[in-house]
């Protein structure tokens, strides 16, 4: 994507010097337009953000074209006085003379010019902020106690900062549609809307579906879709994130939890090979929502709706949560130690090459790395199941596995992933394969019949939810979801990114890297690293593609692998 180019452009463009609140700073002269990518003169709001000064704003969003309609970002500024030859007039002390402009300007739509002085904290500026907020509150219902946005609402934040306790307005507030279902995923409260048009700009300029507009005039302005149509595409919920107030609410999250009770864990969406950076919002071991986390090298500020809403399975009460052992038609709960020692004993006593391992491309890189070690040790045949869906132009990748790259790097799948399965089935039939280990994969669904599975000496399944294969498993090991462990995924472009742990695994479930590390330790009679960090560092030291990376260096934004970096991309 051109995002990386954009970041580069930021470094290469010439700088411009101006003063803000008495401090002289240099910023890039231009920044790429958020949609076209064309360089544009840097605006005051962008320049201030660049040097860490935040100017209150509502309609401005760094990833959207500028609208300049809310007036929240008003500032005062001055320009150098020029003489007839357009040379700066100097003060007796040699400093340039500045003429303060008589009128305030909106920082989001005013470009920085050389020598300009910007004042963001004057009495006049504060007065404007108060006035703009008073206007915005005129017809606002102020129903924060029942608003989903409360706690993360920009209007609330600014009113808290600059608001006044009384209003000059005693008339009745306008009434507008209060809970308009504009789509299957979103409810719109037109009374809370401050008409910033962020939602309109997002759907038109980013998602390229011009589905929202403004009806009526003046104070009666109403955000709307075309009557009779629904606001439906795979990116609509991003409008809920960027709506600065609680006008657009997600049906999924509506009235579920007060935002301030949620803890945020940086993570990676596990639903496709794009690897959008996300935040898991959870409380007491329960996910309430996923939201995008900004990463310009991957997903900007966005994520798709299908990825965002696919998390319910993590808290599914039917999750596998006990270690089970079946023998002679009985199924018993056993503890992890017993399970690991029994499985390793069975593997130790079997001949090399008599094991097959099916490992999912949904496992973490560390887990896939350990599987490769296990496969090497047992001289096992391996494969992994491809999951192909429909991609789109914005983010969604047709590869619905988050970590196919890792499977590929460690050579755990056949050239056409899944093609080995029929060979493995035949080898089970002929008796050449006696042991089958499935990690996050469902062998029955991949084409190994239950009848064949019953011929195995050892059949281990490690999974999260029950399926036809977990019913057949001799050892059923409950694994951890992406929210319950740390790890990394390597996205389709070869960027390796860390996901964090939001809460403990359900019941007895354990992260698969721990299970694999325990099994390797038992098989080799020496301890294997058993934390994601240690496993990662071991792996990074072994593979040149990791180019000296460490867990710590990955940070929350991830890094590009060397050899898998897609060089053909323009």
């Amino acid at each position, binding site marked *: 994507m051109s995002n990386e180019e954009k970041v580069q452009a930021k470094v290469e463009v010439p700088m411009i010097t101006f003063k803000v609140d008495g401090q002289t700073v240099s910023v890039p002269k231009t920044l790429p337009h958020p949609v076209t990518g064309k360089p544009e003169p840097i605006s005051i709001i962008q320049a201030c953000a660049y040097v860490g000064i935040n100017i209150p704003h509502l309609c401005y969003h760094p990833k959207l074209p500028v609208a300049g309609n809310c007036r929240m970002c008003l500032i005062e500024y001055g320009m150098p006085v020029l003489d007839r030859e357009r040379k700066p007039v100097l003060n007796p002390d040699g400093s340039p003379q500045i003429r303060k402009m008589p009128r305030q300007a909106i920082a989001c739509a005013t470009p920085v010019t050389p020598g300009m002085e910007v004042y963001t904290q004057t009495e006049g500026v504060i007065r404007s902020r108060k006035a703009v907020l008073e206007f915005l509150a005129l017809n606002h219902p102020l129903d924060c106690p029942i608003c989903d946005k409360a706690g993360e609402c920009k209007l609330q934040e600014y009113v808290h900062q600059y608001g006044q306790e009384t209003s000059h307005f005693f008339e009745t507030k306008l009434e507008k549609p209060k809970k308009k279902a504009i789509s299957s995923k979103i409810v719109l409260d037109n009374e809370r809307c401050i008409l910033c048009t962020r939602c309109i700009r997002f759907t038109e300029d980013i998602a390229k579906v*011009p*589905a*929202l*507009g*403004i*009806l*009526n*005039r003046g104070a009666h302005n109403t955000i*709307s*879709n*075309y*009557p*009779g*149509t629904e606001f439906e595409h795979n990116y609509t919920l991003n409008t809920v994130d960027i709506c600065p107030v609680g006008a657009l609410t997600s049906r999924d999250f509506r009235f579920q939890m007060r935002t301030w009770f949620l803890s945020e864990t940086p993570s990676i969406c596990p639903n496709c090979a794009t690897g959008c950076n996300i935040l898991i919002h959870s409380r007491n071991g329960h996910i309430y929502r996923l939201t995008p986390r900004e990463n310009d090298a991957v997903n900007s500020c966005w994520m798709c709706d299908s990825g965002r809403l696919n998390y319910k399975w993590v808290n599914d009460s039917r999750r596998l949560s006990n270690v089970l052992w079946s023998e002679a038609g009985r199924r018993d709960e056993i503890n992890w130690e017993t399970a690991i020692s029994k499985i390793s004993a069975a593997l130790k006593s079997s001949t090399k090459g008599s094991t097959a391992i099916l490992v999912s491309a949904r496992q973490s890189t560390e887990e896939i790395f350990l599987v490769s070690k296990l496969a090497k040790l047992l001289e096992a045949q391996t494969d992994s199941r491809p999951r192909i869906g429909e991609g789109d132009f914005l983010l969604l990748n047709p590869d619905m596995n988050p970590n196919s790259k890792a499977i590929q790097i460690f050579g755990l799948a056949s050239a056409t992933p899944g093609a080995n399965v029929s060979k493995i089935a035949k080898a089970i039939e002929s008796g050449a394969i006696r042991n089958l280990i499935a990690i996050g994969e469902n062998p029955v669904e991949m084409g190994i019949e239950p009848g064949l599975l019953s011929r195995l000496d050892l059949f281990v399944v490690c999974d999260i939810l029950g399926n036809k294969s977990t019913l057949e498993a001799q050892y059923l090991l409950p694994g951890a979801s992406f929210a319950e462990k740390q790890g990394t995924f390597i996205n389709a472009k070869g960027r390796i990114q860390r996901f964090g742990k939001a809460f403990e695994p359900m019941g007895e479930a354990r992260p698969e890297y721990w299970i694999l590390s325990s099994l390797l330790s038992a098989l080799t009679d020496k301890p294997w690293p058993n934390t994601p960090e240690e496993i990662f560092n071991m792996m990074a030291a072994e593979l040149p593609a990791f180019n000296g990376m460490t867990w710590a260096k990955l940070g929350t934004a991830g890094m590009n692998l060397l050899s898998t970096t897609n060089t053909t991309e323009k």
Partner: protein
Amino acid sequence: MHETDSMVMEFSVPNTLESEIDELITHYPEKRSVTLMALHALQAHFGFVSDAGIEWIAQKLDQTPLAVLELVTFYPMFSREPLGKFHFRICRTLSCALNGSEKIYWALCEQLGLDKNVHKRQTTPDGRFTVEFVECLACCNKGPVLFLNEDFHENMTEESVSKLLTICNGDNSSERKGTGK
């Protein structure tokens, strides 16, 4: 589109109107700029702007129906409901208001059985009369003034407006008068 097919089928733009709009298109640098004029033309022909009309214009001018609806709802001169055969538009901007335009409005409403306290466009149940307040009609020295369809009437009094009503009541032709261009 989403509208019932029958509605779309019932709606048809006569060739003369379509060629009028085609001709309008040639006057503007881009099709989008014709939207307002096309809406006027449609309203003049049909007496109001229907959903089907909005969708027809959108298609004709490569716009989304929403973009056309935005315009229709922005300008008070467009009506989404059929207007009466006789359309009274009474100015209520300062000069006319000072000269008693409210009295004219009340007189009309009372005689037509409409609610004089409602300040929105109202049409009689038989669909013959529409009455509404509008802003300055640019004849402020002769207030109160009103438009009856496209005809201008100055210095109105309660008596003169009653006379106008009598004339309207005597007109039994089905044609809408003065709605041409």
